[in-house]
């Protein structure tokens, strides 16, 4: 069955990934180059996305910024999914007081508003890519853990898990070899979803001035700066904002397709 939307998502995400890797190579200008006499130019063949009020090429800056906007959420999502999976598998399978304590801890983390935690934490330790990653991991581990825990609970009483227990399989084998493959569909979808939210959060932090520090370009901060000079250089807002939106939509389409494909296979 053809899935045009999933394909579209895949294409979008691939283009952005290529941008992250090769963007700096194909960018016509360095990200911080201030081109003399070229401030506030609208998009043209020379400056595809126009220039901002300082005379920097917006196209080049968007290309340069792709690396951060994909790497930081990417690393953070990978860590959050990793920790979340381990916690979810363990609490879901073992249950008892461990589950009780860890799950309540996770619930209390979930209760903290995302931006509040980010502002407080980054305010305390200073803004840095590592700081942003820590914030995202703290925010998403409980969510991933909860999803994996409930998927694990569904499998825990399956005959094949009980058969493994009766063979005396070690805990790690049961968690990672027997249960993990079964929760993989849920995990894949959740990872893609978390990744798209992490992109949003990272750009929001950039917008608030807590992202990657200048002069490295950051789409979020570019949106923020573009907003200030919207009257004169609207394109300086349009293009980074559009890039964020497009990337998030792409990842979401992909996640949606993934969900359908994996569910289909799971049902077979």
């Amino acid at each position, binding site marked *: 069955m053809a899935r045009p939307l999933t394909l579209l998502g895949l294409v979008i995400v691939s283009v952005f990934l290529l941008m992250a890797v090769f963007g700096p190579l194909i960018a016509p200008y360095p990200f911080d180059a201030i081109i003399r006499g070229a401030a506030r130019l609208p998009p043209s063949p020379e400056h595809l996305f126009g220039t901002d009020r300082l005379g920097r090429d917006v196209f080049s800056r968007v290309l340069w910024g792709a690396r951060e906007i994909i790497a930081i959420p990417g690393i953070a999502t990978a860590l959050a999914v990793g920790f979340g999976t381990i916690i979810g598998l363990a609490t879901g399978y073992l249950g008892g007081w461990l589950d009780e304590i860890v799950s309540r801890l996770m619930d209390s983390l979930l209760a903290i508003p995302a931006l509040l935690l980010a502002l407080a934490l980054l305010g305390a330790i200073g803004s840095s890519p590592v700081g942003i990653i820590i914030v995202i991991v703290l925010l998403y581990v409980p969510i991933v853990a909860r999803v994996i825990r409930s998927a694990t609970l569904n499998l825990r009483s399956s005959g094949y898990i009980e*058969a493994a*227990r*009766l063979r005396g399989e070690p805990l790690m084998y049961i968690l990672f070899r027997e249960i993990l493959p079964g929760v993989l569909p849920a995990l894949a979808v959740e990872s893609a979803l978390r990744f798209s939210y992490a992109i949003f959060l990272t750009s929001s932090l950039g917008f608030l001035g807590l992202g990657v520090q200048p002069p490295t370009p950051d789409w979020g901060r570019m949106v923020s700066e573009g907003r200030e000079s919207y009257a004169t250089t609207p394109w300086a807002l349009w293009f980074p904002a559009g890039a964020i939106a497009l990337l998030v939509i792409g990842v979401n389409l992909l996640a949606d397709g993934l969900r359908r494909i994996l569910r289909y296979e799971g049902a077979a």
Partner: protein
Amino acid sequence: MPNPVIEARGVSMDYRLEKGWLNAVRDVSLSINPLGIHGLVGESGSGKSTLALALMGYLAPNARLSGGAVWLEGEDLFRKSQAELRALWGSQLSLVPQDSLAALNPAYTIGDQIAEVTRQHFGLSRRAAWQQAVEMLARVRIADPTSVARQYPHQLSGGMQQRVTIAMALSARPRLLVLDEPTTALDVTTEAVILDLFRELIQETQAAALYVSHNLGVIAQICDQVTVLYAGEVMASAPVRELYARPVHPYTIGLLASIPRPTTGVETRLPTIPGVAPALGDRPPGCVFAPRCPAALPHCFTDKPPLEMIAPGHQVRCHRWHEIVNGDVAILTQPEAAAPHVAHQLAAESVLSARGLRKTYGGAGWWRRLTRGSARRVRAVDDVTVRVRPQSTLGLVGESGSGKTTLARCIVGLETADDGQLELLAIPLDRRLARRSRAQLRELQMVFQNPNDTLNPYRTVGQTLERALERLSPQPLPPDQRRQRVLELLEVVRLTPDYADRYPAELSGGEKQRVAVARAFAADPALVVADEPTSALDVSVQAVVLNLLKDLRAQKGASYLFISHDLSAVAYLADWIAVMYLGQIVEEGTAEQVYQRPSHPYTEALISSIPVPDPAQAGGRIRLTGDAPRAADIPTGCRFHTRCPRKLGPVCETDAPPWQEAGGGHRIRCHIPAAELLALQVSAPKSD
């Protein structure tokens, strides 16, 4: 001849697939007169539910009627508009579904839900409708209808819920009642009572009924005409007594022979039907049953046999019915003798012994009470002592909630018993799984109930078996030997070597269960605990698995703890029987003692409730009134006194009954002396 209530002629139905239509029901005709109970039998995928719904004029959104018509008292149902049909459903045409809890709305009281039907169809006032709802509840023999009417579905037991759906179905005085496996989820004791109720109510209401079931025993008990479906086609249709006494179609003959009966005994194997039912997509061009038919001739594979009337009301679709009726072709070979089975019935030693086993849920400790909020103690297993003798099978029977599964799980270690001693092969066995030695794990394996989650869906059959061998073999096996052993195991469970590379999704339910048996036998265990291993399987497949278990016991010298609610299946395998009621064993003895002379009043009722696939034996002698008390509030004294038909008096309510020895290892836990209980059995008329 009265006019039939419902008449289907040449009904064919298709389901929409991605490419084209899939024919699910082909050219089926049947009619039911008032007061008639028509049985529709078939294995899963035979199209019986599709057909049943079609008789109500219902088509699933992805289904179509591709031929034929259905008339309700002369009116063509499929020419009616949706609005007209909706007016008929629930009034003229009623359905009693299998899952009664799903059919009831959890947010409304029982009374409101029944009243809704009459308000809708007869425009009764709220008060009158409620009054009638209470009356309906009384009619389905609910003891306290006024208070039950005010309760919510979840507050009722499964049997009570099913009574409520029956009350609802009957409250609009339907002309046709469609009963879709209405007792499949119930215990035999409850089932027997509900079947009696159906019979009475259909008499009372003068309705016609279609009874859909896979259970030939139940069909024999209640129906007067039976239609056998196979792969969407009618194989035979006959008056019930004729179908069971003189089945003509090879499929009917095979199906009836493959059911274990309480009298089958341990010496024989069940005759089975080879092969599996065809997928609807690739039905054979000739007779659909030909590939599995022992009497098939070459032309059976090419020419479709017509449905022929061989006697009044008796139709058969078989080319060779003449020869079968005349006895020129035998469909069944003589029942094979099972491999000689030497049960060490009186052996002093045991493979497994459990003494004073207890398992209580809830109510333990302040932490649980704080976190789980429930302080109700449920004594699931309460001071149980059992033993399994070498190379023999202990059958554990009882209603749901009797604690039989918990007992089995405590023995294998999936649950940790709170108290009691376990011994495996005369060596103490820790109650905790983690403390058991590798050798003990090897000797004690289990086969689970649900074939669909018994195998890891992400591993091939070969990988699953290899892992079991790797973990459980006494000596480490090199990979090539492991592979060899996998093939041997597959052969033992009668699967071809190519199954090693298949994933569970590519296997049928029976095949999955056979792989599960192979996994349990990977390292020649001493004891295999089988918890309802065949209850999710079709009759013809169940026979294959039961035979396999029987053969393996002889081949491998293993013992079984076999748990089932199906007393006939237990009788087929077990040498010893233990009957459980509310967490305790109430009777134990050899299979013969327990089945031929069931002495405890509970066992007696249980055995008398078995739906025997023989219409001549319809309606057992003893029915239990009321439902089993919940395990959270166990009655004082004898736990069975609330339902006991032979209750002596106050002593049963206050004192726990003693064990009575009836000789030969036969023990009964009852206040009535064993000799007296046995005498009751001898004087009672034996039905078989």
